[in-house]
């Protein structure tokens, strides 16, 4: 782009993304990291509590159970799933997979990634879910 043409472009207004559904969804996806950051800060607090001792750890578990924290973390759970839904469809576009000369259908790659999510959940169930 030469300088003369860049001078003719007006700067975007702050609310440009509110004018179209596609851009609203884009900004919603950008915003999924806000509850993620909240959850990560909670985890960091939990690690500090664990280092301090048994009493602090129990205090942290109680803090995680307070209604507002629980709601924000449920929001983080929903955000992680929404992020996953938008992220998984990008994979076959960025890196199409070919097996024995045939390209793997996009749906198969997306399904494979969801299978990964389920596998991690099963691993956690195996590790933490049994009495």
């Amino acid at each position, binding site marked *: *782009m030469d*300088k003369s043409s*860049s001078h003719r472009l007006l*700067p*975007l207004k*702050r609310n440009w*993304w509110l004018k179209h559904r596609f851009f609203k969804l884009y*900004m919603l996806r*950008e*915003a*999924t*990291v806000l509850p*993620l*950051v909240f*959850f*990560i800060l*909670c*985890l*960091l607090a*939990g*690690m*500090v509590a*664990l*280092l301090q*001792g*048994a009493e602090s*750890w*129990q205090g942290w*578990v*109680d803090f*995680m*159970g307070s209604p507002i*924290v*629980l709601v924000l*973390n*449920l929001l*983080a*759970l929903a955000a*992680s*799933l929404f*992020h*996953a839904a938008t*992220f*998984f469809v990008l994979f076959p576009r960025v890196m199409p997979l070919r097996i024995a000369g045939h390209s793997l259908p996009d749906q198969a790659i997306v399904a494979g*990634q969801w299978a*990964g*999510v389920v596998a*991690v*959940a099963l*691993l*956690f169930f195996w*590790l*933490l*879910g*049994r*009495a």
Partner: protein
Amino acid sequence: MNKHKPQHELQHKQAFDEPLWWGLFSAGGVCFAVLLPAVILFIAVLLPLGLLPANALNYERASALLFSVPGFLFVGAVICLPLFHAAHRLRHGLFDISVGSDALNKKLMYGGAALLSVFALGLVIAGMLS
């Protein structure tokens, strides 16, 4: 790609660091999508609601799980990489709504992610040594 740089800067300066931020963003995005749903469900929902077995994450078990080599890798995948993913999205989100200057936002976001990452990994090492 170069939307964050003023025109006059573009001709002289190449953004050597951008591939690193995009790489960390992608790696963090994979962790956020594949690992975080289960991590949030078990640690932030089922545990505080008392839906896990009583000894699943009591003090002794949680310490043993976290303060270990697998715990160190867990922190890298669940805290550090997603932090850089979040930093990248926040930086670009702030640019999108014209908040602050990108040069400063960049330092704040990636710097914050790096500091918290070092802090988190340091906590695991401190726990392993104690």
